[in-house]
């Protein structure tokens, strides 16, 4: 398919901009004036619509079908939320509007904070972080501010992270100026408590933990873990990527965690948008509240139902993003939570039931590294399949596309060889779950009988397997117009066996 730039013809345009006669002329200084126009596409409006519509047909979303991408919680995105976020009172509201002209927005933010407090079992919320990974970084900044305030920041330099963690955790630790202390996973898929005990001391600032973990397992030792960290005077950080498993069932605050980030685009149905936007609010225990980002959203008067942005927080870490956060995400997630209310518990129960059902149907055909009941997701391994047939997790993923499913996350978590990380979510019908299980079982048989079917997959997507190695070796990251390199294909495409998902 052509690029929009390859459809461009000088002189065509989709826009008309108002021009006004008789206004003063403005002469820009020569050295500041644009010397050559940017080569933006020149197309009529209908060509624009056709181009992007055609692109959309080459893409697959949850609206197209089942999307069990582990740890990403690809659930249905209710359409009412799209209508609500487009209301002029939300879409056209300026973030620097005076508080008294933004009471509806502030009330919505305050109400969302209240719901998140109840769901997490913690005391105070900041909505500001733009995504989960920014929530992590913000949380670690709070850890530092807290220990600085206590005069302990000099010696508390280490953050403990299990080997199953998302890559964002260690990356956030470095960006916050801390050092990573890795801890192992035991034979049941829990944190290895003995290993942990030997690594936590007076230099430990915090633990970052996803619970249920990226293996989809609830850590059975969580009480002991909390004792170890709090006993050492360290804080506990909860990566809320997997919160969809436990809403209304178990709360991070009750598990002993002091800081939680919530992925609004996962658990609370902000559409993923092809890679974003997200929302990563954080909830904290009371002793951390003074350090939260500014501005805080506060209620001034219950009776009069009035709200304000509060900048007067002398111990605050500052701002981590512009204004009070990604407000449109708040509108959608707030509407989603209100659509469930206390029935959020049913949402999580169904997600866990669906995952266990798919697990029960598939565990005979693929390796199951940790044979336990799972939470909202589980991790299989294609290692026997690979040994016996030469087919890899990547091949299984590609073959699933032929059956009309988006593949699961693969090659993650890193501690499981040939990992297939499957998260069905609560959205699906039993018929869909069964069709997916049937496909996975058929693929396991195909691997034995006709391995080429897997190796050559996918067969009917808009493109065949793509050469990722070539893309990285000779990066072409923009259109080069008349000097754009021509492609000389034909050799075997090499798709990288690296984490795809999360």
């Amino acid at each position, binding site marked *: 398919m052509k690029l929009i730039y390859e459809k461009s013809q000088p002189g065509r345009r989709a*826009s008309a901009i108002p*021009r006004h006669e008789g206004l003063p002329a403005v002469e820009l200084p020569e050295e*500041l004036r*644009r010397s050559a126009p940017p080569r933006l*596409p020149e197309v009529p409006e209908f060509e624009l619509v056709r181009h992007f519509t055609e692109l959309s047909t080459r893409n697959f979303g*949850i*609206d197209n079908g089942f*999307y069990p*991408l582990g740890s990403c919680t690809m659930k249905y995105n209710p359409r*009412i939320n*799209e209508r609500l976020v487009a*209301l*002029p*009172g*939300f879409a*056209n*509201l300026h*973030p*620097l*509007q005076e508080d008294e002209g*933004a009471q509806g*927005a502030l009330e919505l933010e305050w109400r969302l904070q209240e719901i998140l407090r*109840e769901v997490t079992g913690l005391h105070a919320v900041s909505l500001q972080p*733009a995504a989960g990974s*920014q929530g992590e970084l913000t949380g670690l900044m709070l850890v530092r501010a807290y220990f600085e305030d206590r005069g302990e920041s000099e010696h508390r330099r280490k953050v403990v992270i299990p080997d199953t963690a998302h890559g*964002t955790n*260690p990356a*956030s630790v470095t*960006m916050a*100026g801390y050092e990573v202390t890795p801890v192992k996973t035991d034979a049941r898929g829990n944190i290895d408590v003995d290993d942990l005990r030997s690594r936590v001391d007076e230099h430990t600032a915090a633990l970052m933990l996803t619970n249920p973990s990226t293996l989809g397992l609830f850590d059975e030792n969580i009480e002991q873990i909390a004792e170890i960290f709090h006993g050492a005077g360290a804080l506990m950080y909860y990566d809320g990527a997997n919160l969809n498993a436990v809403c209304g*069932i*178990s709360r991070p605050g*009750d598990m002993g965690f002091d800081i939680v980030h919530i992925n609004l685009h996962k658990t609370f149905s902000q559409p993923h948008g*092809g*890679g974003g936007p997200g929302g990563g609010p954080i909830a904290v225990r009371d002793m951390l509240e003074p350090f939260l980002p500014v501005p805080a959203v506060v209620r001034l008067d219950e009776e009069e139902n009035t709200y304000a942005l509060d900048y007067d927080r002398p111990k605050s*870490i500052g*701002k*981590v993003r*512009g204004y*009070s956060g990604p407000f*449109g995400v708040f509108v959608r997630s707030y509407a989603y939570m209100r659509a469930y209310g*206390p*029935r*959020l*518990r049913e949402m999580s129960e*169904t997600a866990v*039931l669906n995952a266990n059902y798919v697990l029960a149907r598939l565990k005979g055909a693929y390796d199951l590294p940790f044979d336990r009941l799972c939470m909202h997701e589980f991790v299989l391994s294609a290692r026997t399949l690979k040994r016996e047939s030469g087919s890899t997790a990547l091949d299984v993923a590609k073959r699933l596309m032929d059956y009309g499913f988006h593949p699961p*996350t693969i090659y*993650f978590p890193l501690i499981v060889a040939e990992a297939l990380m499957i998260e069905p979510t*609560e959205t699906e019908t039993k018929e869909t779950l069964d069709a997916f299980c049937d496909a996975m079982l058929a693929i396991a048989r195909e691997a034995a009988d006709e391995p080429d079917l897997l190796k050559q997959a996918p067969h009917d997507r*808009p*493109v065949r397997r*793509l*050469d990722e190695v070539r893309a990285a070796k000779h*990066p*072409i990251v*923009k259109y080069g117009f008349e000097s754009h390199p021509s*492609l000389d294909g*034909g050799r075997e*495409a090499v798709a990288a066996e690296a984490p795809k998902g999360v």
Partner: protein
Amino acid sequence: MTHPYLALTDGDREEMLRTIGVSSVDELFRDIPAAMRLDRALDLEPALSEIELAAHLGALAARNADSTRELSFLGAGIYDHYVPAVVDTILQRGEFLTAYTPYQPEMSQGVLQSIFEYQTAICELTGMDVSNASGYDGTTVTADACYIAKHATGRTKIVVTEATNPQVRQVVKTYAPGFGLQVVEVPHRGGTTDPDELRRAATGAAAVVFQQPNMFGCLEPAPDLAAAANDAEALSIAHVDPLSLGVLEAPGRYACSIALGEGQAAGNFPAYGGPHYGFLAARQEFIRRMPGRIVGETVDAAGERGYVLTLQTREQHIRREKATSNITTNQTLLALGGLVYLTWLGPQGLRELGETCLSLAAYAKEQLQERAGLELAFPDKTTFKEFAVRVGRNAREVVAAARERGVHPGYALGRDYEGMDDVLLVAVTERRTPAEIDRLVDVLAEVAT
């Protein structure tokens, strides 16, 4: 009653539990210690139907004074530019809206190709070699660029002009301690930055950050500021308004290392601060230090052209604690909105939009001086679509009084700058008309001084 967002029937549930080999849904949670289970229902208001949701959120939206309810000249970083209908149309396509990061390229050519086209548009706008797939907003991409500068230079001082948007400066300062960076601010002199003063501050710096047009709407001597940074072997980082780049020179043409900014003006609604996208583009030498997703062109097994996420060994899911950033979810859908918008504009539309903003703002400046008797805060400076004017009394009071008359006259700069309590920052986009400007002038003539 089955919840509308759920699907299982009682029969489904029974059959599934039987397959799993447990007797109840509760049993699925047996790994959670009893003390950690919530032994009551969540204390939340009852579930709302779609009809009730529409009424409730409609009532909340009605409590806001948005730019359809008052005539707005408020800008200061977020602007009331027109968002064309085609942006809504494309962004509501479920194939884009409900997909995630294109980890599996065969399922995601639509998103991947559109990001490649977006990267091209950003490089064309800024005159740079490489763009990422977007960052959270104009503030966080600036912090990202400082992180690039630290690793590229091995230095730890970041110089930021005081005339850079305070939201941006605050975020850079919040990130700095974790990055091991110190932030130094260089004051403005009569509305713009003095290149010689900046040159002195840039000695030993990792980066120099300036904004063009700056917070006051004034045009900085940008080529001289970039030179001041480059001569000190610091990275020159230009925070630019994308919609100024049809009339203002591309940062790449005056030797900036990195060009970045807030994308909202180009194709996103103000939306009380987000979600928007931040764009970040750099010279080729920084390609392997870029944060976040980058899409590259390649071929498939049949030799056909296709697109993939590339240079992923920079990223957190592979490099972990040694990654160039922790970012994963970014702002793809909003960046797609940016691409659709820039395609809608085209090069001619972009230039004309810039010229319309320039002339409307010039008209507003002229009329506010002549008819309302106000003085410009920086009378000898060239401005783009925004300018600072002295209103003779506390500007916040003027804002309040003008809003009572249905006009939001702009941003009170005293909220961020000492000694500017009587200064109002007025933004004029292509959506405003000369008649609306006349109304602003009438209102300010009445409530100012």
